[in-house]
């Protein structure tokens, strides 16, 4: 029981760091440019497909992964320059509709190019297999690597944002973009950079998770909606909020699915507990969100509305 708990806790943390990689770009883009991007999940999906293709073409996981990142960045930049830059001054509704249209276009294009059936990416030899953790559980090396890389990126991002001049601009832009632009900084260029960075992080998340999950059209959407939950809980524009909320959502979701039925057995019969547990588990993160918003309508680290 305890070892299963640790196993699922690690799985939850792993989902959490992936969520953070997707949510980081989303929350900065929204915080700085007031731009709501429904297509952010598509960048995650494209990252996974690019990785699948590039790993297959080069025959080497590491080269494929390293090439997928700039490719995802380039894809994001092209979208920003050709489409999104026309939408900054439009209403949120227009942004939702246009990026929703983009989701349809990207999803169908992916089906056209790669087909509808899922792809799989072979795990690199160096990271296959599992190791004993805490002396009681075997945990896959690759998943540990995802967690470590995720934390490393989170720390890197936090350092960038909290310690550098560019990060200072980012924070200032996220809390008051009009002021930053009045002080003479080119907020549009700042945004292009942030957007490219966000696209690359989302694409990278898709790429590193490819060997663990199947790569399929529509994989971006479940991630996008969870990422929305994350940035709403964390408070829009806050990287720290996104990080904590991502871990919280990842852990609550994973533990809820595996232990919800067990916990419910305290009050229900086993069969009723397993049915109710299965029904409640996917809703847990939304209940969590509702709870947080009831107490703090702008999220944990959100600005006052």
């Amino acid at each position, binding site marked *: 029981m305890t070892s299963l708990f640790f196993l699922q806790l690690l799985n939850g943390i792993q989902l959490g760091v992936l969520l953070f990689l997707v949510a980081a770009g989303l929350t900065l883009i929204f915080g700085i440019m007031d731009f709501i991007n429904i297509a952010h999940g598509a960048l995650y999906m494209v990252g996974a497909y690019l990785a699948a293709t590039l790993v297959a073409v080069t025959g080497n996981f590491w080269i494929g992964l390293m090439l997928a990142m700039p490719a995802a960045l380039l894809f994001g930049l092209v979208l920003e320059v050709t489409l999104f830059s026309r939408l900054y001054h439009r209403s949120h509704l227009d942004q939702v509709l246009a990026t*929703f*249209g983009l989701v349809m276009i990207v999803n169908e294009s992916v089906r056209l190019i790669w087909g509808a059936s899922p792809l799989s990416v072979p795990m690199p030899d160096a990271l296959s297999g599992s190791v004993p953790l805490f002396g009681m559980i075997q945990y896959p090396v690759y998943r540990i690597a995802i967690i470590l890389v995720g934390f490393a990126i989170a720390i890197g991002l936090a350092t960038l944002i909290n310690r550098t001049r560019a990060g200072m601009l980012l924070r200032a832009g996220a809390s008051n973009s009009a002021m930053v632009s009045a002080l003479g900084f080119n907020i549009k260029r700042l945004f292009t950079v942030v957007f490219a960075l966000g696209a690359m992080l989302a694409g990278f998340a898709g790429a590193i998770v490819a060997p663990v999950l199947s790569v399929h059209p529509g994989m971006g959407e479940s991630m996008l909606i969870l990422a929305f939950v994350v940035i709403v809980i964390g408070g829009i524009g806050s990287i720290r909020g996104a990080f904590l909320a991502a871990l919280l959502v990842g852990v609550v979701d994973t533990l809820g699915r595996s232990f919800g039925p067990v916990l419910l057995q305290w009050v229900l019969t086993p069969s009723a507990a397993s049915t109710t547990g299965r029904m409640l588990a996917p809703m847990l993160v939304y209940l969590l969100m509702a709870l947080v918003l009831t107490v703090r309508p702008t999220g944990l680290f959100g600005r006052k509305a």
Partner: protein
Amino acid sequence: MSVAATLSMSRGRLASRTGAAWMIFALLAVTPAVVTLAGDPYLTLTFSRILIFAIAAISLDLVMGYGGLVTLGHAANIGFGAYAVAVLSRHGITDLGLQMLGAIVLAGGFAAVTGAIALRTRAVYFIMITLAFGQMAYFFFVSLSAYGGDDGVALSGRSTIFGSALLESDVVFYYVALALLGLVYLFSLRLVSSRFGRVLTGTREDRLRMQAIGFRPFGYQLLGFAIASCIAAIAGVLLANQTEFVSPAYMSWHRSGELLVMVVLGGMGTLLGGVAGAIVVLLLEEGLSTFSSHWLLGLGVVLLAVVLFSPSGLAGLAQRLVGRGEREGRP
């Protein structure tokens, strides 16, 4: 421009809108006859579907066009309506009226609870929260294995009206849907021009001012949100009957997005625009899907083009054309 001229123009716009409404409803009334004469009675079902989505689009326009609340979870209500049919008929209640009552109670209750939480927030938070609540409802029905879970559930037949199986006829079903669309349209028209509707629209325009003159917008917005949800649930009852099949796919956020597209394409805040939008989007889907299984690609491109180049939708386009005609016709 003088007050008199403004008045006469808005009166002219109102008259042209009533004219457009009569025209659309007259065309819809003769559709079954036309498609039967054209030798394709199957199209009656396609057009029933259009009527159903027109009802849903009108309801979304109430909350979004008049209330200013952009929701990405509206399709959940269609699902509530559809599942009200599936669940009640499984337990022997096949009467259309009772099923609609069940649908309204379910959707209204869900809207009251989630709306009360969502309305604590503004703008983009509201969009995301409605999206999340919609997904919550979606996952609830996905995990409801007694009713087919992910795969959905087939109905043994259409609902009955006072014990008779009238609805089994596609043509009768079509006219029932058309009558309901007419009722929903008239009801919504009355609602938006009532005091309630004006407070709602006033809140959309300037919340602070409404508060300053003594209104508490929260109650109005919540009631508007719930009424719209109930109307969408009625569309869901009809959709279950039209397809004789119910699945969680009815409530996915893609469906909510499609409803947004219908309203915006037709013209927000015009009610009739939702009807026009439903007609255009569904005919476009039908048309594109005969060309290619990748028709969503085409729909996405059309959507992008409309947002970028004609933000006020078809109604705006029509108004611009009509407005030009009026100006030219005037001495």
